[in-house]
């Protein structure tokens, strides 16, 4: 047997598992960072190897910081996984403030016993998402919790971005008469995840729509820097809850056209089967925008010209309403309130 002088037995990425030592801050933790995280995310900032990352920003801009925890179960689902999600989700929250995302920080909470092979899959997927989006993961942290006190891996990501001059995007900016735009079909992410849940399992080709929306936002702001008033990604709680949030924040009402809201037939079918409403299902690659009426057409055209906005549509109008109701003219010809999600959306039998 010949052993190299500085040989260190590498992480067993095939059969190894996370143990408490990987979170204890010693040599095992350092090895995990080097052989897994650093290798996958490799960039100059992370290579600084310090408690945080130091970076420059273009002068004179406003900054945006956004954070999200990612706790999806199962960790892997059609169209994505918790890793890609954690990158896209935070890029999107930064972008929804009208900003160009620059950097991401990632905090991992690992459960003792989590297979290193799965962790590697997650980390590689994050790395790919970050590379593709051009938003590097520049600093991070890893903790390990005891078996039964976590769920494989939780990832909290925080993004930082810069807002261009003249951009003023906020959920508080909607005004009566504004136009509500939606970037595409709703409900795929939530249904793709549900389809993998034990005891709900069904076969479908629906894949999560998880995607980084910052380039779409850039195209929209290019079309009208000041006409885009609100941007929001309808994640948890779905389109319905997101629009209610905006209505309340801006002190307005909304009137939607059900017929205008695009839903894939498979998503519709899954919702019928489980007693769910696509309006309340999570999306991870869609955005809703409120635009000044005079800019709406240009913004919509810019969305449609972007690969992530090909199915963009105008779905409604902002109204004056002291109760901040989101209402909807139904495809059937009636009208109803589209309320906030109440509690958790559970599959129903009645």
């Amino acid at each position, binding site marked *: 047997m010949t052993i190299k002088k500085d040989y260190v037995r590498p992480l067993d990425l095939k059969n190894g598992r996370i143990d408490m030592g990987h979170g204890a801050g010693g040599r095992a933790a350092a090895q995990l960072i080097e052989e897994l995280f650093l290798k996958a995310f490799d960039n100059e900032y992370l290579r600084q190897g310090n408690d945080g990352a130091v970076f420059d920003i273009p002068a004179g801009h406003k900054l945006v910081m956004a954070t999200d925890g990612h706790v999806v179960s199962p960790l892997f689902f059609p169209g994505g996984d918790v890793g890609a999600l954690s990158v896209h989700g935070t890029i999107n929250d930064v972008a929804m403030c009208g900003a160009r995302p620059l950097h991401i920080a990632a905090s991992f909470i690992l459960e003792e016993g989590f297979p290193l092979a799965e962790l590697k899959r997650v980390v590689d997927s994050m790395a790919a998402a970050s590379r593709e989006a051009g938003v590097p993961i520049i600093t991070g942290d890893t903790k390990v919790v005891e078996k039964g006190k976590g769920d494989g891996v939780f990832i909290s990501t925080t993004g930082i971005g810069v807002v261009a001059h003249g951009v003023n995007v906020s959920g508080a900016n909607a005004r009566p008469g504004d136009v509500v735009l939606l970037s595409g079909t709703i409900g795929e992410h939530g249904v793709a995840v549900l*389809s993998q849940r034990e005891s709900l399992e*069904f*076969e*479908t*080709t*629906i894949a999560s729509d998880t995607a980084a929306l910052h380039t779409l936002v850039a195209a929209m702001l290019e079309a009208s820097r000041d006409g885009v008033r609100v941007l929001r990604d309808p994640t948890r709680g779905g389109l319905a809850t997101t629009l209610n949030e905006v209505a309340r924040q801006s002190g307005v009402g909304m009137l939607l056209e059900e017929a205008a809201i695009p839903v894939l*037939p*498979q998503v*519709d*079918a*899954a919702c*019928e*089967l489980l*007693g769910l409403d696509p309006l309340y299902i999570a999306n991870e690659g869609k955005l809703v925008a409120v635009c000044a009426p005079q800019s709406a057409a240009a913004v919509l055209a810019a969305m449609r010209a972007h690969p992530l906005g090909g199915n963009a549509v105008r779905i409604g109008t902002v109204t004056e309403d002291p109760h901040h109701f989101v209402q909807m003219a139904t495809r059937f010809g009636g009208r109803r309130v589209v309320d906030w999600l109440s509690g958790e959306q559970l599959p*129903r*039998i*009645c």
Partner: protein
Amino acid sequence: MCLAIPALLIEMIGPDQAIVELGGIRKQVSTALVPDALVGDYVIVHVGHAIGQIDPEEARRTLAMFGELAGATPALETQP
């Protein structure tokens, strides 16, 4: 409300077990309660069980009747 939905029976996969299709998704259901259902039938699925079947002819007649003048279409089944 007893959520139930018509779905196309596309394959029998075992005793009292079948695959149904609905808007492009497939799901395994029990057919123990509809012993006469055949592939090609539309069964009504509730909590993972087919509990009844759609009669296509009746469906057609119902659609034709909607909003017609009373008696304008063949009368629906009426119990005295």
